[in-house]
């Protein structure tokens, strides 16, 4: 596989190898996050061949990224002339990378078992989970493409599925081997690595409007029953005010 220098932000010349490594690990984290979102749709009512295709492409992308990350980080950590501060940072990246790879491994194993159970070719029943939309945007995000071309809905035959299964199995074994290799080649002591970032993730500042809408939705879903109660209370208040006004008028008349 070609060693591609993948970065999240598209600046042509990256100054230090440290920034390169960080960018690679960041993009791997992004791809794994998208993969998880995609995997959660398997077996649901939106499970179709395009979802499977998206999954496959995301997975392949994750593999290439992982490979390049691993080579880069291994090379750096085995370099004895690395200064102390940079070594610490690289070790942090290493821990992040290996945890990411473990997440990917777990997700791939889950996808493997689920795909066996919910086979498209055999028209197995899918669970009605309430999801409606497609996952093309997620795949586009994962593959860093502005938009994804819609390959026509190709129906999956069972032989194609079988092929994909075996390929997935091979890739799972490969990730397994990668994890083991990593531990053998580079010795990073987990207890010496300290997190530099904050304990709490900063609330994402973009799109606060949709955030607010989402929280309203949540609360509305919870307080769904009490909406009618609120309405009844308002009615009662209106009636009471009306009665007060009437009595005042009566008093004035009399």
């Amino acid at each position, binding site marked *: 596989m070609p060693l591609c220098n993948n970065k999240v932000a598209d600046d042509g010349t990256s100054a230090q190898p440290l920034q390169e490594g960080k960018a690679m690990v960041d993009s791997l*984290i*992004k791809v*794994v*996050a*998208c993969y998880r*979102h995609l*995997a*959660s*749709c*398997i*077996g*649901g009512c939106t499970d179709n061949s395009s979802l499977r295709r998206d999954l496959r492409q995301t997975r392949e992308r994750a593999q290439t990224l992982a490979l390049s990350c691993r080579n880069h980080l291994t090379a750096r950590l085995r370099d004895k002339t690395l200064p102390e501060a940079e070594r610490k940072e690289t070790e942090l990246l290493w*821990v*992040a990378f*290996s*945890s*990411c790879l*473990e*997440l990917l491994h*777990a997700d791939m*194993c*889950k996808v493997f078992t*689920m795909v066996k159970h*919910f086979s498209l070719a055999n028209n197995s*029943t*899918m*669970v*009605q*989970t*309430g*999801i409606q*939309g497609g996952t093309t945007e*997620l795949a586009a*995000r*994962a593959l860093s493409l502005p938009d994804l071309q819609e390959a026509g809905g190709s129906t999956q035959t069972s032989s194609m599925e079988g092929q994909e299964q075996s390929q997935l199995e091979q890739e799972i074994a490969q990730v397994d081997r990668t*994890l083991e290799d*990593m531990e053998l080649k580079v010795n990073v002591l*987990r*207890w010496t*690595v*300290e*997190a*530099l*970032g*904050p*304990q*709490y*993730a900063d*609330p*994402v500042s973009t*799109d606060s409007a*949709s*955030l607010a809408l*989402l929280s*309203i*939705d949540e609360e*509305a*879903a919870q307080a*769904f*029953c009490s909406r009618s109660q609120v309405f009844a209370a308002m009615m009662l208040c209106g009636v009471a005010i009306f009665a007060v006004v009437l009595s005042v008028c009566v008093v004035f008349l009399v």
Partner: protein
Amino acid sequence: MTIRNVRDHGQRYRPRMACLKKVENVVLEMQDPKTGVKSQTQRLVITTIPHAITGEDIVAWIANRFKTDAAEARAMGTMMVAFGYIYPLQDHKRLILKPDTSLYRFQTPYFWPAQQWLVEDTDYAIYLAKRNIRKKGMLELYEQEQYNNLYKWMNHKWDFIVMQAKEQYRAGKERKKPDRVVFDCQERAYWVVHRPPPGTVSAMDYGHDRMVDPNMEEKKTPDYYRRIIMFIQQCIMRPRVKSSVSIGALIKYTTTYKEHDPFLHTCLPSSPWITDDVTYWTLNMPNVETPTKMRVERWTFSFGELLMDPRGRADFRLFLKKEFSGENLAFWEACEDLKWGAAETMKEKAQQIYKTFLARGAPRWINIDGKTMDITVKGLAHPHRYVLDAAQTHIYMLMKKDSYGRYLKSPVFKETQKKAVAPESHRFTETQLEQNAKRRRPSLSPIILRQQEEEQKAKLAASGPVDITQVMSKLERKQKN
């Protein structure tokens, strides 16, 4: 990397969770558009989300499918909700099936409780971080505590966790809003099942994992046959008792002890395992001043019970002291000490016991018959742990047949019985129970308990045994005068 000391790939077997596969099949049957459960749309403020089902529909479908009554169907539905195959849309923390119009939805297969995947703490940390982002720092109390704990021990991964949470959050934004809401509900439901809020019981408590699949066929190697042969030989050699006899003994035991078991019967004042209040344990400490009535009742069941309870033994010791026959109990205790003590001090202990209790003219001479005395003295030439076993058994039988009966009729025992406390049962409200749960503390360290025991023993030794020869000489002196 998470430490993988168990080479996984599905090697952990949870035999009690075999029901999960069956529930999955039932859930898939419920999906059928014709014969399955009717689905409706859930209306939120702006959006509508399909595939919501009502509790009563679920109960009706189950009752119809399995030809049972409504109560049974409801119980089965609650089981499905407790496992996490269906989650409630309102009141999401209580995993029960309400047979009314409350709405539920099916969980996506990714979040089904699968048998071979352990629920990872990393995932939980990522979920909490995401939730923190969404709720802008307003996590629930127990979630906050868990978050802090995870931060402490998963510190090396924390940057990754925060980054992954942010990325998952941003990836979620790429989806349409109803899908985002559904995904959040799904994830939340998944974590309510696997990390239950405090005070709730999790259906995923299944006991220990097994290392070997009990349903797997074992290969018939010579080793396997060797094991089987050994096993069967031991079975044959085992002594056998008639089942009528053993069942009779079991029945007798259960009828005597059934009211004393804190799990089978209400224990006073309240069961600490249920109400998190430790009064029961403090009242029943080994060396408490006034024992409880139940404890005193247990002493009347058998002599063994009396001796095994430290408080009972102390009472018995007091009685024997009044009767001037304390040497039997002292000898018995010394033999126990020899049996259970350290190997290096064994020889000296045996010699000490011989000098104090068994030799002719010893200060605390015990009365055992000639044959036993012969065996013991011969054995003491080459002392080992169980050299005084015969003598100890003899003395034990003596105490049991003679002193025990007199003890139960003695004023000492009657006094203890009168002073015994019978605590009233507690009546805790919900809030008090929660407070009790928060105030849970670990019990006394075994080191401290051991120190207390040693102090007790030292006090006893210091108070001095009644020396028979001195008492006899005192009596003689009195007579002379």
